[in-house]
């Protein structure tokens, strides 16, 4: 468990964490904003996602063995770094509270409509607490272990669905549709930006990282876009964009109509399971980042005593942030999406820019 984190584990964590928004939010949001041609939006998202990946790689190579706080400390000084970390802390708290709500709503929508959300949230917090007690490496290793079977399952679903894909739901697409698909791509960009999470754990990497390992970042970003594209085509081609736009979890409804050579069906339970696992990874990682932010802000050495008080805060905050599906949709679309763009793109971009300007000085230092 004391071995350094590998790039594979980090990229698998990023992909796993992004799975639940890919399945739950992206198809619906793209149908809403991009209409029939919304499935093209993931392609546009590459324009923002690839430069962000380049910035993350650049920062890791320039500051080997340092995390985002230490990088900021070097670049802008302690006071400014702590201010930015405080803002990140607020973002993570809001993100966590909304994610907990999304998790509870998913379970209520799919499997257990009569069960109260506090039951789901308590179970999730117990699991997260247990995972964090074992160390964040456990979460990374869990992602590494579970992502393979999940990808195989998605692959099988895609093969089974090929026969029932309706091309009239997807075509024709004209240049007239392009502006709306470009605008809608911010929904994919806001999820793909999760790659900056890597910077919070950058101090756990081995000091020397080979070029081959760095290539895994590009692979992760491209696979994320590929997954978003495939899942959206799936959903639009089977459920139709107009219905997908109005459903809270269109991919779940899509999978209901898929069967494996008319022998096995009702795969939707597996989709719920994938979402639960992805939410578990997302909440655990974000919880770990939250405790890290507090650790950096107050300069404490141990984080173990923070888990229970923070879990209580997140549990109750969920009720104050959003409770119903409509509220969650509004909050995600208007607040969380835009905050994601600021914290995942604008701040890392500014850091990258400062690194470029101070590059000569940094190279002398390390």
């Amino acid at each position, binding site marked *: 468990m004391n071995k350094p984190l590998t790039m594979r584990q980090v990229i698998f964590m990023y992909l796993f964490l992004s799975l639940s928004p890919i399945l739950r939010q992206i198809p619906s949001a793209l149908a809403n904003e991009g209409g029939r041609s919304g499935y093209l939006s993931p392609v546009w998202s590459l324009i923002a996602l690839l430069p962000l990946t380049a910035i993350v790689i650049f920062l890791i190579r320039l500051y080997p063995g340092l995390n985002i706080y230490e990088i900021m400390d070097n670049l802008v000084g302690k006071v400014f770094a702590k201010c930015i970390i405080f803002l990140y802390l607020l973002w993570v708290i809001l993100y966590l509270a909304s994610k907990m709500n999304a998790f509870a709503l998913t379970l209520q929508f799919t499997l257990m409509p009569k069960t109260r959300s*506090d039951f789901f949230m*308590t179970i999730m917090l117990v699991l997260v607490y247990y995972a964090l007690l074992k160390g964040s490496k456990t979460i990374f290793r869990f992602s590494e272990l579970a992502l393979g079977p999940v990808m195989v399952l998605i692959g099988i679903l895609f093969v089974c669905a090929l026969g029932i894909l309706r091309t009239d739901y997807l075509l024709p697409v004209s240049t007239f549709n392009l502006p709306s698909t470009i605008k809608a791509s911010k929904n994919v960009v806001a999820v793909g930006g999760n790659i900056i999470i890597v910077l919070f754990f950058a101090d756990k990497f081995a000091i020397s990282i080979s070029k081959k390992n760095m290539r895994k970042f590009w692979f992760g970003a491209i696979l994320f876009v590929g997954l978003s594209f495939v899942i959206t085509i799936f959903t639009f081609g089977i459920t139709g964009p107009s219905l997908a736009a109005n459903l809270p979890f269109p991919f779940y409804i899509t999978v209901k109509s898929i069967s494996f050579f008319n022998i096995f069906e009702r795969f939707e339970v597996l989709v719920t399971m994938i979402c639960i696992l992805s939410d578990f990874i997302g909440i655990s990682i974000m919880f770990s980042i939250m405790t890290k932010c*507090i650790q950096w802000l*107050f*300069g*404490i050495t*141990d984080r*173990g*005593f*923070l*888990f*229970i*008080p*923070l*879990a*209580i*805060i997140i*549990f*109750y*905050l969920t*009720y*104050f*942030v*959003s*409770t119903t599906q409509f*509220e*969650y949709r*509004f*909050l995600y679309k*208007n*607040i969380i999406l835009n905050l994601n763009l600021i914290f995942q793109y604008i701040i890392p971009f500014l850091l990258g820019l400062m690194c470029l300007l101070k590059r000569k000085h940094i190279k002398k230092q390390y």
Partner: protein
Amino acid sequence: MIYVFGILLIISFIRQKDQLLKIKKNLILFMVLSLGGIGLGIVHMVSPHIPTIAFVLEKYLK
């Protein structure tokens, strides 16, 4: 639920007491966060149907 959380906080305090009592900063942080959590819990218990942030924002942004 708030009683369960209260008990968990006491257990957590007892288990981590060496660390909390040795460093003042840790104790203050633990107390502030615990009081924050319990405060939110009391507000939720007293008025469970308080308008959410999303509801308020929706009302004023639209």
